[in-house]
């Protein structure tokens, strides 16, 4: 395992922090936007749709009667 100096690449000697910062700051924007977009389309949109669908034809009085029949209310028997 004898590597002569000629065969090895010289490593980067300066600007390491700047390189690290640039990579991460520039990468943070698409990463966070991507995560936000994913949350919006995979979580928020379906949830709003589920609520809209549930309440479109919701019979609140009928629901109340069912609950009353099941006997959970103290003051409405």
């Amino acid at each position, binding site marked *: *395992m*004898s590597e*002569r100096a000629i065969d090895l690449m010289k490593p980067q000697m300066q600007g390491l922090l700047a390189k690290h910062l640039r990579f991460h700051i520039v990468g943070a924007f698409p990463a966070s936007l991507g995560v936000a977009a994913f949350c919006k389309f995979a979580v928020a949109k379906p*949830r709003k749709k*589920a*609520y809209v669908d*549930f309440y479109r034809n919701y019979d609140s009085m009928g*629901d109340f009667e*069912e*609950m009353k029949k*099941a*006997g*959970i209310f103290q003051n409405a028997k």
Partner: protein
Amino acid sequence: MWGPPLTYHMFFRAAWSLALRKGGPGIREMHNPGSAAHSKEKMPPYTNYHAQRSYPMPDEPFCTELNAEQRALKEKEKGSWTQLSHDEKVALYRLQFHETFAEMNRRSNEWKTVMGCVFFFFGFTALMIWWQRIYVFPQKPITLTDEWKAQQLQRILDMKGNPVQGLASRWDYEKKEWKK
């Protein structure tokens, strides 16, 4: 800044090597099969030389007892380094340092031992907890018995808890069973 952590590190290294000494070269061979460095250098804890990736420039050179040839080489080192041949430079490096960076940072098989011991103790803990559950734990409180839990669930379904996306939305109220 490096003083106290390094002395603790050195102490544990010394204690560990002393413990290893009883088990011979067994574990070291297992962890690093086929490593080259088994020459007759001083092994810890009999030297003050400790190099690691985070502390790459130790206080003392690796070889302090030099024979005549090595002493002559050290004298030559005091002159111009362009006079040194490649092999002499390598020899000087080996006098100063035990291993190259590549050798020092080599991987090992230690992780297998570690994971094995971790899993072993997981299993041992599981057996202990099982025994405790049978012989030590008191009776369950009434709210954790199956009948009470069934009645509790029925009450939540009657109240239609979370009817949009949650629990009651998974219950079929006509067929009185969970939705498929």
